[in-house]
């Protein structure tokens, strides 16, 4: 037993202490968090806009008056539909490589490219989540807003979207937990994220157990922390329902 412990201790020192290898993990964690956080915000922004276009199109296109506005609106909806279909229909790692090696081939700012890729990817899923949230809001809320003289955008912004976001918060949290873990493929395009960091340590030390378990634990702690945050937020938002 004590022999086993001594071996683990030696392994630990080899993997994390020698040559300051823990710094790989620390820097990798930084990259993972940077990519995830900015991608989340980008995803929400894209998602809200795409969801509004899709929802409004389904609701009002039939009754819209003909004109250039209608054509533009049709186009915007078509773009959203294609975007959602393509993004949801291809693996995120392929999208990431296309971004890095083809679209932004001239740039080597990996973190920025990864942030854009993951944000755009997440936006497609978030769009559908939020769209279902908006559909779940009683049309009476919109009617009340419009009857006071608020325009469509004001009614959506102040009344419908806040309620929709609250309703879909659990689904959004799911999406962001998935996003955090999906960023582990960033290593494919030479980004030193958390997963890649663990892999580098494995390569240097020829020891797989310590670095990989450490990486797994860090992801687990991150997700647990994030879940806790969301449930706190949910409880706060529920204040409007007694």
């Amino acid at each position, binding site marked *: 037993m004590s022999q086993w412990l001594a071996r683990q201790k030696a392994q630990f020192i080899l993997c994390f202490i020698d040559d300051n290898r823990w710094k790989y993990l620390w820097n990798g964690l930084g990259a993972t968090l940077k990519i995830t956080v900015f991608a989340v915000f980008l995803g929400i922004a894209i998602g809200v806009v795409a969801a509004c276009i899709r929802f409004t199109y389904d609701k009002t296109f039939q009754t819209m008056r003909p004109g250039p506005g209608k054509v533009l609106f049709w186009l915007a909806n078509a773009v959203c539909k294609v975007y959602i279909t393509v993004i949801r229909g291809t693996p995120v790692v392929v999208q990431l490589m296309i971004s890095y090696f083809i679209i932004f081939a001239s740039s080597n700012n990996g973190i920025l490219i990864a942030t854009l890729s993951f944000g755009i990817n997440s936006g497609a899923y978030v769009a559908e989540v939020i769209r279902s949230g908006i559909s779940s809001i009683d049309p009476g809320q919109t009617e*009340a807003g419009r009857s006071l003289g608020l325009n469509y955008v004001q009614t959506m912004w102040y*009344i419908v979207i806040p309620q929709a976001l609250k309703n879909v918060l659990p689904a959004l949290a799911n999406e962001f937990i998935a996003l955090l873990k999906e960023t582990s493929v960033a290593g494919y395009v030479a980004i030193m994220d958390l997963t890649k960091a663990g892999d580098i340590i494995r390569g240097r030390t020829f020891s797989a157990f310590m670095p990989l378990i450490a990486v797994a634990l860090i992801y687990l702690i991150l997700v647990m922390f994030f879940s806790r945050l969301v449930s706190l937020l949910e409880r706060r938002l529920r204040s409007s329902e007694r």
Partner: protein
Amino acid sequence: MNDNVLIHVDGLKKYYKNGKIKALDGITTDIRTGEVVVIIGPSGSGKSTFLRSLNLLEMPTSGSIYLEGTDITDRRTDINLHRQKMGMVFQHFNLFNNLTVMKNMTLAPMKLLKLSEEDARERALSLLKRVGLEDRADTYPSQLSGGQKQRIAIVRALCMEPDVMLFDEPTSALDPEMVGEVLDVMKRLAADGMTMVIVTHEMGFAREVASRVVFMDEGKIVEENTPAELFNNPQSDRLKSFLAKVL
């Protein structure tokens, strides 16, 4: 057109399914300033559709609606501007669930009338006092009873200082013991001289408060008169049989 005509409705039609369903089949009427018009009729007669057409929550198929002389069915008219002058109260209250009572009331005045937050709050508070709910300013709609919700909905609309108030079956979703408190608010509003158009099944209320009662059936105005005349001396068979059932 008369000088004090507030809303003039001319040949209003609303068809669904390419004309197979005629929700409104040529409505022509005037609503004058200070008038309390109560619309009655069997379900499916088009009364709610008519009321909702007045502020274009339903877009009519044809016909015109003039509010203070402006044709609001004209696509060049800014309907949002005209809706500010027409308060609306719904059957299901439709208070904004994500906002407190105070924010429900101050949102539109602040965004549209550009009132300062202070002025809007002051206006809202004095209206809340009038309906006895000033202590509810900071609660959320889910914490209110149906009667309270509807009274808030009424003063929310009044916060915009509209020229006319539209009521779409305001007491139909209420528990019976709460109907009175809402009708009381409406009666006081009528006594203050507010122009009102009300769709309701409360015949007693219609008799007491209305300056004119309109009976609709199958998308048409069948009969309209003062409440005393219409209830005591109905002319058409359709109205007679309707009154026989509801009175």
